[in-house]
């Protein structure tokens, strides 16, 4: 799976969890600052990414990821 595909699926997950349109999610959007995720939604996002990609991430490190582009790199490390 290449990074473009990962990014597309990540945006789909974000749109579902945060209930926003995929088109409103810039590639370098910050989950909190740009998309308005609160602390509960940040945890929901981690769980949703794990389900989407069928992976188990280090939760503490995953919660440190702040932007869509960083999430792409982080998840790529698990799916490659």
């Amino acid at each position, binding site marked *: 799976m290449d990074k473009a595909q990962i990014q597309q699926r990540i945006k789909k997950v974000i749109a579902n969890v945060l209930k*926003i349109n995929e088109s409103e999610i810039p590639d370098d959007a*910050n989950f*909190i*600052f740009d*998309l*308005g995720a*609160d*602390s509960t939604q940040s945890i929901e996002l981690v769980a949703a990414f794990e389900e989407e990609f069928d992976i188990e991430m280090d939760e503490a490190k995953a919660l440190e990821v*702040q932007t869509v582009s960083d999430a792409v790199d982080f998840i790529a490390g698990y799916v490659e």
Partner: protein
Amino acid sequence: MTTVDEKLTRVHNIFYPESVAIVGATKVPGTVPHDLVMNILRSGFQGGVYPVSPREKYIAGIKCHKYVLDIDDPVDLAVIVFPSSVCHLALEQCGKKGIKSVIIISAGFREIGSNGIEREEQLKTIAKKYGISFIGPNCLGVINTDPNVILDASFARQMPEEGNIAFLSQSGALCTAVLDYARAKHIGFSKFVSFGNKADVSEIDLLYYLGEDPKTHVILLYLEEISNGPGLMKAAEDIIAKTGKPILAIKSGRTEAGASAAASHTGSLAGSDDICDAALKQAGIIRCTTIEEMFNLAIALAYQPLPQNNRVAIITNAGGPGVLTTDASISEGLRLAKFSDATTTILKKSLPLTANIKNPVDIIGDARADRYKVAIAQALADDNVDGVFVILTPQSMTDIETIARAVCDVAGQHQKPVYTSFMGEADVSYGIDILQRNKLPHYILPESMSKAFAQAFSFRQQQKRKKNRPVSFKDVHKAKAQKVLKDAKSSGQNYLPEEEALEILELYNLPVLQRAMVSSAEEAAVAAGDIGFPVVMKIISKDIVHKFDVGGVVLNIQSKNEARQAYQKIMKNVNDNKPQAQIKGILVSKMISDGMEVILGIKRDVAFGPVIMFGIGGIFVEIFKDVTFRVAPLDRVTVQSMIEEVQAYELLKGARGQSAKDVDAIKDCLLRLSRLAVDCQNIKELDINPLIVRNAGEGAYIADAKIMI
């Protein structure tokens, strides 16, 4: 570079903005970002309010902007409520938008450790880049009750009443408790600030701002840590000298085991809280131990004129409480006023025969408002009275509320302080409420009333004191002393043995006795003979700090033969008790025994810098702990006050037929020591113990000294 004036302007805009953006707002009730928006709106703030939220379209019917940069209008103040991980992004946008005044409410910075410290540093860098001044992070926010703006940019539960007291607190949680406490007593505030981690705007900046604030007459400060002691002291001294505004402070951590296991007496006696106590007092800040004590004094200072002297009149409808108040007043150093004949005559005419017309004036249990009114008015009109205490106990016929109103009426007609104590709780509560609403200080207990008056009088006296300049000396050799200390440090020494310590003290012209270093019994005998008997001999080794403990000292040597024996004895003792110690030699010096032993010391404090200690010396110094501290540099008045402060001052003055000691010599030593402490920053601790002080005019001599570097 930001000038002081620019910073004060930015701090001013935190309190007086024309528009506010709340960056990171949400519409979830019960959350900080939501409640803060609501507090600003509810407080009645008349300027523009701009919630900034990445997701919300409207909050409380007000249009939200996604980014602060999207706001078309200028914004004076931004309040950032985002989680700590993105505060830097918000602050960066504030900088780009040209917002110079910011409050960062969010927690998760220095207080949580290394990650937080990094984030806080990031905020400071951004603030510096854009010339932003910010309060916080990790704070409750800011409240300004000035009717011209009325701003509650905090997440407190209630907006306080308007008043002339400013409250600054490092703890946000304490702020909400104080607001609740004050509301119940109708204590109003001019400004209310929780400054949190003080990453940028500090208590010092806020003090300078409030010093200039016409709405603030009294400043209260709650501190958990003091990071710039000298800065805080200077700010307080400047403000008190310029404006006469009292500053009251609570510094928590009093019970900290501050005195470390130090190598010197000064180090072990000078706990960080003792130093803090001394430094705040030196700066004119009134240190309080509890919130109650702080507000007891604050209302006295904020509501009433300062007492010109300490003569009080007590007006009471109950004998017992009158006596209690008298006792408390005398204990606090106050005096009962002696009424003039005119006052006595009028009181005699106006009060029943059973009344006691002498001070304390007992207007009898059935007193109504008319008796209170005449007694208070006559007392206030008497030139021998500097303030009046009004006491009431509730009897069946006591019209509490009418009396309260009468007290308020008459108190307002004179420029003298009137304090009240309506004793009890339930029945007197409405009367107390009237007093508090009318800004008459009320105290449940007469003891608190007397204490507050005594503190207010003490502040009045302190205002009169002139600031003196530190003393400078031409006969000191700073560069040479610095070189000796630097060389010792370079060679790995942390401790200067007596001989080297004396050399430093000699360079500052401190009174060091004639002495000689010897390295044989015969040399000791010759040196002792040259110096003149009696002499004292001491081991000198950088490995031995406490010479007595290893048998390294022999006192009162009266002959050459005794000097030879002493040499052998010391060498044997040291060889037995400290065989690894490198011995430099044995110091033979003149022994002076006919004087009083005092201790002088230096300790370099983390918060306040060099601190000078003075007290009663000798080997029992830690047992008596009769010592006092001041932050260097010292002036002559400060030195005098240090000497007068120790309990043994009476002995120095010459108690029970003994001759007075040479206090002037002690003063000179303290001033020179202060100069040394300021000049030689690498002295960590220094002990002169004892300094032997002879009779007046005969001088003082250093019998022992050590320096830690």
